[in-house]
């Protein structure tokens, strides 16, 4: 199990590997889709669950950028307690009526911030350096050494999400 896992993770998280770009593309698309669903979905409970998925994808990004410990903190503290707290709290409320009021003003603000941040990011520098993938080896080490804990963590989070959905649906009925 461990050599196979090591081979797989090394194939994905290796400098210059085409799998790394493929993984980044999939993660980027998933993150954007879940973020859009979080903002626009009508049900608050499902909206919060989509936010949990955004947190999960962000943790994967942290891992690829070379911050494995922060990825685990994001998973355990942010998704595991913060977002689940929102979900459980919302499930105690009755589903409120949602109002959407689209206007041009919001689009202009969004576009302005988007361009501003992109310009700052590009001016700071987007080229990879030696320090970019400094923590890649430790990421692989964490995944291969603690794979069982990660599996348990994923199972526990999935179970908590499913239970929260079940509780909120029971509340509606």
């Amino acid at each position, binding site marked *: 199990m461990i050599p196979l896992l090591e081979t797989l993770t090394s194939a994905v998280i290796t400098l*210059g590997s*085409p799998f*790394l*770009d493929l993984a*980044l*593309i999939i*993660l*980027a698309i998933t*993150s*954007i889709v879940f*973020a*859009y669903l*979080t*903002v626009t979905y009508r049900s*608050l409970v499902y909206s919060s669950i989509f*936010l949990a998925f*955004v*947190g999960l994808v*962000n943790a994967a*990004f*942290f891992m690829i*950028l*070379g*911050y494995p*410990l*922060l990825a685990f*903190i*994001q998973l355990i*503290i*942010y998704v595991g307690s*913060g977002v689940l*707290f929102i979900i459980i*709290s919302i499930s*105690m*409320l009755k589903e409120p*009526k949602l*109002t*959407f*009021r*689209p206007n041009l003003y*919001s*689009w202009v*603000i*969004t*576009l302005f*911030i*988007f361009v501003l*941040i*992109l310009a700052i*990011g*590009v001016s700071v*520098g*987007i*080229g*990879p*350096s*030696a*320090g*970019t993938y*400094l923590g890649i080896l430790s990421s692989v080490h964490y995944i291969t050494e603690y794979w069982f804990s990660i599996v348990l963590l994923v199972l526990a989070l999935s179970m908590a999400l499913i239970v929260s959905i079940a509780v909120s649906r029971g509340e509606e009925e």
Partner: protein
Amino acid sequence: MIIIGLLLVILTATILIGIGVWGMVYNKNLVKMLLSLEVSFNGITLLVLYLASTTGILGMVKLGAYIVFLGIALAIGEISIIVSVILYMFKEKMLKEISQDEVRSEE
């Protein structure tokens, strides 16, 4: 290929921040506004970590990690306080709906 991948990270972070701000302006529901803020927060953490890791200076790499760790801790506190206040106001019937208009009309 690596530069394309790293461009994707910065693009994703900025799009997440944009979607979050858009949701903050777009929605009138208090919980939805909080959720939009959290989407924006996720984008900001990704951007900070990305910028910290591209500098190549070990001190900056560590500083980025510290900032994001502090940010996550503060975000959890913020979530718990805001959701508790909303829940309290709703249960005490200060709010009929969890809407921003309702809060404004209470003033």
